[in-house]
């Protein structure tokens, strides 16, 4: 609040009202419903529901399938996060260094930010087309017959590739702006103190980028968990079968297709707890970040 804020009462209430109404109806209500129905077993024909306590959760945690999906999600998120951060960091460091064509490179490397995840998935589907996909042909050179949608690992690979492709630009933008915000004087001091370029990077640049990196780590994990839905859905062509899927996709499949409302809600709540933990972690990092700058 500003020191000399206005003291009118009715105007700010009017200003806040649309936001408050929308979040009440479309945020708090659904959230409460999700938590509530995670404790109930829905009758498959829609006639009422029974309170079952934590049974939905217990079922999930003991389900082999759910544990497998959870494990896949962890591996998937780890791979996507690692590769998209690493590639983006290398590109950002180089883009920050070159003088010629810096702007062109920047544009070429960031436009994919605007591509929707399902389009990335669609492109992956084409590139891995069974009979003539360029990437299928490429892997064929090494004697591997790539079968997206049939082979679990092949499908997972195409998902990771599309997800990394889609995520590199965001990380690139943040790393580049992080690099550019390192004061000139600090770089010049490092230039005097250390003759080796890689030494300067690891001793000075990298630690100064660390706050950006931590922040991006969370962003990327959240991305891998949620925003990759469109990629997963297009790559498996809406037919989960034995294909790899993420936890969010499972919520959708169980709740929307399988009509297992209680189970799906319990999954939602588990995800909520996960995201909550991540976000709180992130806020604490942001607080720290303010001290850095």
């Amino acid at each position, binding site marked *: 609040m500003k020191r*000399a804020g206005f003291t*009118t009462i009715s105007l700010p209430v009017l200003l806040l009202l649309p936001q408050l109404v929308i979040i009440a109806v479309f945020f708090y209500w659904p959230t409460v419903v999700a938590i509530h129905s995670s404790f109930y077993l829905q009758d498959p024909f829609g006639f009422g529901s029974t309170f079952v306590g934590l049974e939905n959760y217990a079922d999930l945690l003991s389900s082999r399938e759910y544990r497998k999906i959870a494990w896949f999600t962890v591996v998937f998120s780890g791979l996507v996060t690692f590769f998209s951060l690493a590639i983006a960091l290398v590109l950002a460091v180089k883009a920050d260094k070159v003088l010629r064509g810096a702007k062109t490179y920047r544009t070429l490397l960031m436009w994919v930010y605007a591509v929707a995840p399902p389009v990335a998935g669609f492109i992956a589907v084409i590139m891995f087309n069974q009979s*003539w996909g360029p990437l299928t042909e490429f892997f064929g050179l090494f004697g591997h017959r790539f079968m997206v949608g049939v082979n679990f690992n092949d499908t997972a690979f195409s998902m990771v590739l599309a997800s990394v492709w889609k995520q590199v630009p965001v990380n690139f933008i943040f790393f580049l702006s992080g690099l550019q915000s390192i004061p000139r004087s600090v770089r010049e001091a490092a230039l005097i103190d250390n003759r080796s370029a890689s030494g300067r990077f690891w001793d000075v640049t990298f630690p100064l980028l660390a706050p950006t990196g931590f922040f991006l780590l969370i962003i990327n994990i959240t991305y891998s968990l949620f925003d990759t839905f469109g990629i997963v859905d297009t790559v498996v062509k809406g037919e989960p079968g034995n294909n790899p899927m993420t936890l969010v996709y499972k919520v959708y499949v169980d709740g929307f297709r399988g009509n297992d409302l209680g189970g799906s809600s319990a999954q939602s*709540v588990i995800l909520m707890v996960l995201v909550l933990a991540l976000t709180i972690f992130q806020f604490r990092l942001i607080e720290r*970040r303010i001290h850095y700058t």
Partner: protein
Amino acid sequence: MRKPKLSTLIDHAVLIAGSLFMMLPLLMVLQMTTIPDTEIIRTGPSLTIGDQFDDNFTKAMFEASGFSGENTGLSMLKNSMILGMGFAVGKIVIGMMAAYAIVYFRLRFATLAFWLIFTTLLLPLEVRILPSYEVVQWLGMLNTYQGLIIPLIASATATFFFRQFFRSVPEELVEAARIDGAGPVKFFIDILVPLSQTMIAAMFIIMFVYGWNQYLWPTMITTDEDMYTLVRGIKQIVQVLEGAVVPEFGRSNVLALVAVIPPVLVVVFFQSWFVKGLTESDK
């Protein structure tokens, strides 16, 4: 000294490789829009540029497809525009209003409102997707633009962003305006909104792209084909490609291209605003 150093050459090589990694998939899609479907099923994408773009484009944009036969590329483009614009405008207007109320007024329950609003930053729509669907269904808003847009607005990213920005506006400005006889409405319209122009532009770009690219929510909420957005339509395309004897690759690639181009153009042309908005929104 004039001779390019080896390290500079390596830098450029890495950047060119990165650029190709980003560009090639789209170039492939572009190439596939120029050749007939019969050629695609034989050879797939190649390096030759065909002459079928006009045909494929006309087919994709103006000829109906789908089960109901109401689903043209043009109508999907329209829906995508409405979703992107509606979402961006709605989010910015509502966010600015709420942020203004929180930052510039002495309100007893300001702290409570703040927490109610900012808790929404903690949980994405995906974790409450089914109950949200039920709420929209109960309100009779399935297959409507309101049902498509408003629930997506129910998070406080824009509010948070504008709150941060308003707080960085010098305190003395509102004091000077008060002494100059401007009330809260005048101050907002005469001073704060013009002052926020760049921020509004940055937010608009980010939100437009975000809204345009929505997939899961439109997939659930729109079942009428004339409500499909381009991005939502991708699902349809992929499924159609599966079963057909001669899959319409040309058409689907044009649609994918059209789904990508508007947000990409916005991001590329308003790059500096967009980067500023993106990197400053999380501070």
